[in-house]
């Protein structure tokens, strides 16, 4: 597994993709800085929480995952180099998990860096340790779940995966699930928010949504979701033909 993880990390860490996504992830820190510089009377902790809950979790995190996870298997399928991995005595599930771990490391690394930047810019005094840690765990688990979904998408539709994923992120995760609690039940962000809520006080939760979503159940749902996605991707990879 480790050689495939190493290979994938090197593949994902090159080119302009990393720079573009890195620049995108500076946005929360810049918005935080702008908020502080504007002399607003609002609470920076609440602003930071809302920024994380409404921009990072539903939009920036899935976009980052989309860009890296669809490439993790999709690029090799597209350029014809996949046989160098699949024609080896390595089980398909090991290949899929190696790719997932690598995509998650890159995605979570960037998202966590963005979160820490936002924290250092203006939240060191406003967020307690449990708030920061729950935001970090929610980011990591969210990255894991989105990467599992988009890894499969990249394998199934290497050419159109990015577009399909973008439509999904912007219309479902970023819009529909934001306005309808019923639709949100079928979104990944709903459960990433649940993980976030587990580290917040009741007051903090009430500042960003009407109800606490429940941390443990959210973690379980995300883990089951990852298992289902990797199971599907493994099944697809086993039956994949490479003309």
């Amino acid at each position, binding site marked *: 597994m480790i050689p495939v993880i190493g290979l994938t990390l090197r*593949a994902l860490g090159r080119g302009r993709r990393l720079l573009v996504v890195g620049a995108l992830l500076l946005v929360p820190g810049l918005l935080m800085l702008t908020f502080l510089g504007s002399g607003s009377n609002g609470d920076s902790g609440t602003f930071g929480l809302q920024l994380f809950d409404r921009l990072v979790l539903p939009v920036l995190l899935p976009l980052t995952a989309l860009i890296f996870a669809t490439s993790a298997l999709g690029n090799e399928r597209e350029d014809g180099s996949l*046989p160098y991995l699949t024609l080896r005595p*390595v089980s398909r599930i090991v290949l899929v998990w190696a790719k997932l771990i690598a995509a998650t490391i890159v995605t979570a690394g960037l998202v966590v860096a963005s979160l820490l930047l936002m924290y250092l810019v203006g939240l060191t005094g406003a967020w307690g340790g449990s708030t920061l840690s729950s935001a970090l765990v929610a980011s990591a688990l969210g990255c894991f779940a989105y990467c599992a979904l988009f890894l499969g998408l990249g394998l199934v539709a290497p050419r159109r995966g990015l577009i399909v994923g973008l439509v999904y992120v912007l219309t479902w995760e970023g819009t529909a699930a934001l306005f309808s609690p019923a639709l949100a039940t079928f979104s990944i962000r709903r459960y990433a928010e649940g993980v976030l809520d587990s580290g917040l006080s009741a007051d903090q939760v009430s500042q960003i949504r009407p109800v606490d979503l429940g941390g443990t159940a959210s973690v379980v749902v995300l883990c089951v979701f990852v298992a289902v996605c990797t199971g599907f991707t493994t099944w697809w990879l086993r039956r994949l033909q490479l*003309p």
Partner: protein
Amino acid sequence: MTVSPEAPLEERGTRIVDESPVVEVEHASKWYGDKVAVSDLSFTLGPGVTTLLGPNGAGKTTTLRMLAGLLRPSQGSVRVLGHPIFDNPPLYRHIGLVPEQDALYPFLTARQFVELAARLEHLPDPGAAAQRALGTVDLLDVQDRKLGGYSKGMRQRAKIAQALVHDPQVLILDEPLSGADPAQRLELMHVFTELSNQGKTVLISSHILYEAERMGTRVLVIVEGKLAAEGDYHAIRSLMDDRPRRVAIACTNAREIARLLIGLEGTCGLEITDQGLVVQTVTALDLYRAVPRAAQQAGAHLYSVEGLDEDLESVFRYLVGS
């Protein structure tokens, strides 16, 4: 003989011998929607070099990809060492593939690329195995350069090294000599012959007859997705030599040259054209010798003498017809 794909051949203390085929293809067809890529292929392969010959688009790559387990036959079966090859990762330790695609990992050096293959094969000393394989294809001097900066010939050799690194029983190579310079071609052909001498089963696709002649005596000829001929190279070559061939002669005074050539043994027909004449003959070599003499006797200028049926595709079509 049926063998377990899990156990390395050496551990079983056996070696695949001639009487039991290493690769068995039975009535294998592959189609994509309405398009038939290969149809009803049946053949077996044992140790030694076999060349899969065919013009571009004949179905060579599809055949090789079915043999390597990258494609599942739409109909029929492909078995390697007695087992179905598709979706059978334990069996892949006995197979090495050099794909036709040029795609590699451009950010890796050749050493890293071949070591990666060795690690995925779970070899005990990946570094040493990679050095051996890179040495075999003469890439040791440039092994620490990134693949992205390699020439096509060097990339081909890197691909061959990754296929050899785990010393597979079956080696499948799709146009492995493309991009290699003449000296490298000779060297690689020597490598394939050596592997054959070690009892390996080597299947090489090519559209160049000369390569088949140099590498082995057994050929499979595939045309339009069907097996057109199978067997000893020399038998097929002699079949090709017996067919009538057309030779175009660009010259002045074509009528006089035609008169002199009509009586030549083996001449089947003559046609006067704008540029000169086209002669149909079963003894092309004799004709090539006679043409300059005839031009001299006729006091004509001779501009060119060119075989019109020497391309492989027309040779293959003749084989299908025969």
